[in-house]
């Protein structure tokens, strides 16, 4: 496996993100909603605290990340450009990793744009930087997990709208596993509760980085990437 094709694909993808209107619409929408939550939280609580705002951002990512990933593979399948890519001497894994890196870079740009909120607080007061940094780490890890699953769904369809809806539904269900786990109880309940995105995020904004949570998110990333690769590869023997 080579790093050059991966980076070339990532660069191409990033270029087309910012060549399209969608990228700016997604970032603008994201900043508008997170900004609203931030100002409400600060004005109502009168506390120099980002914990609630950043937890809200995690939920907003549920809506936003499917928009980041929906086009990644669906568009290439619909337009037919995938034929160029897969008849080139690149492995499916290289294609998947290149696309994943581009979406990850987009996520970082989007999260970096929210740095405005903590910077605003710092200019007026002295918030504890620890929980803010760990919250961002949590957002990044969770965003990476969302993107990886979204990439997999995008490999399954040639329709971007379908990719968005299915990704959102998938993420929401996993997010809500905690609530469902109560219904089942027992072993299944424990498994569902472990898989719930919600449970793994909660500690980050409190300033706690638990290895278990980090491992969970990284496993989801690997899982999604492998599924995406397999889906893309299946074309060769179907």
């Amino acid at each position, binding site marked *: 496996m080579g790093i050059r*094709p991966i980076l*070339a694909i990532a660069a*191409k993808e990033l270029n*087309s993100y910012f060549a399209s209107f969608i990228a700016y619409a997604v970032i603008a929408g994201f900043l508008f909603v997170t900004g609203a939550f931030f100002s409400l939280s600060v004005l109502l609580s009168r506390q120099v605290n980002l914990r609630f705002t950043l937890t809200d951002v995690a939920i907003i990512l549920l809506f936003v990340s499917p928009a980041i990933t929906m086009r990644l593979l669906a568009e290439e399948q619909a*337009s*037919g450009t995938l034929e*160029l890519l897969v008849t080139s001497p690149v492995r499916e894994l290289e294609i998947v990793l290149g696309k994943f890196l581009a979406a990850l870079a987009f996520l970082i740009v989007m999260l970096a744009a929210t740095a405005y909120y903590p910077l605003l607080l710092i200019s007026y007061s002295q918030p504890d930087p620890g929980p803010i940094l760990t919250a961002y780490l949590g957002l990044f890890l969770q965003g990476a997990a969302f993107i990886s699953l979204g990439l997999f769904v995008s490999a399954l369809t040639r329709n971007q709208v379908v990719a968005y809806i299915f990704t959102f539904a998938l993420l929401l269900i996993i997010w809500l596993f905690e609530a469902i786990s109560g219904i089942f109880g027992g072993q299944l309940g424990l498994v569902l509760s472990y898989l719930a995105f919600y449970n793994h995020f909660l500690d980050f904004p409190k300033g706690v980085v638990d290895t278990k949570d980090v491992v969970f998110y990284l496993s989801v990333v690997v899982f999604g990437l492998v599924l995406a690769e397999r889906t893309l590869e299946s074309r*060769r023997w179907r």
Partner: protein
Amino acid sequence: MQPAIQVKNLSKSYGPTQALKDVSFEVFRGEIVGFLGPNGAGKTTTMRILVGYLPPTSGTVIVDGYDVLQDSLKVRRRIGYLPENISLYNDMTVEAFLEFMATIRGVPRGGIRDRVRAVMAQTRVEEVAGVLIGKLSRGYRQRVGLAQALVHDPPILILDEPTVGLDPRQIIETRQLIKSLAGDHTVILSSHILPEVSMTCRRVLVIHQGQIVAEDAPENLAARLRGSERIRVEVRGPADEVRRALERIPGVLAVIPEARDGVASFAVDCAVGTDLREQVAEAVVRGGWGLRELRPVGMSLEEIFLKLTTEEPDGNTADSGHRG
């Protein structure tokens, strides 16, 4: 010498539809081979299997000594592929696109600029190097497609309908380019247009309903399948009288008028193996008309094509096939 491409007993089914039935052929190094057949004959399916885009249902494909299924990456490294109705990244400029393709095709970093510049010159797209692909005309897009197939200088080229969408001048340029690649490169090109293959290829495989129905040089194909000899005659004189005189010559099967102002022009079909040029000349002179032209013509590939692909034993004609 080992052939560049070896296809053995290749079959492909899409569900219940059989797109290819037991296709076998070889292509030798430096050859330009044409796939000829109507839309839906199986040309695109065959090419997609050769480049590893589709898996065959059964049969083997060996490219440059490597099996398409076992050593897909090695095969793909050796092939330049122009898909039918190529889709390109519309949000990239021509130059950026070709640099991207060169990178993923494994052109060394230092050589990318030179290679891109070379293929842009070869395919005459330099003047649009900085233009977004989405804004290009059909002709330019097709040539950019050809440029990406050439950018890594592959020994084998698979070109699916390379001149579709080009204007006549561009078609001639593209044919010359493809011809100039022969020798160093092995080329397979497909077309449903006959002059296309007869002008660029030294060997033609005629595909119909998923099977190879003929394989030969374009001239031999013409000779082998010719059911009659044809002579073209141009005479200055009354068309109807000339026609009647020509029809009276023994051995003439049919006289087909080709209307033109002032002169009577005919295609005269004769029995196979006869040469009636002298008799025709004599008949014209006897009538006291001016003989302006007299020459034998081979039957055009178009007509062979019609024979090959529209004549069915049960008299069922003009089958256009299912999918490509």
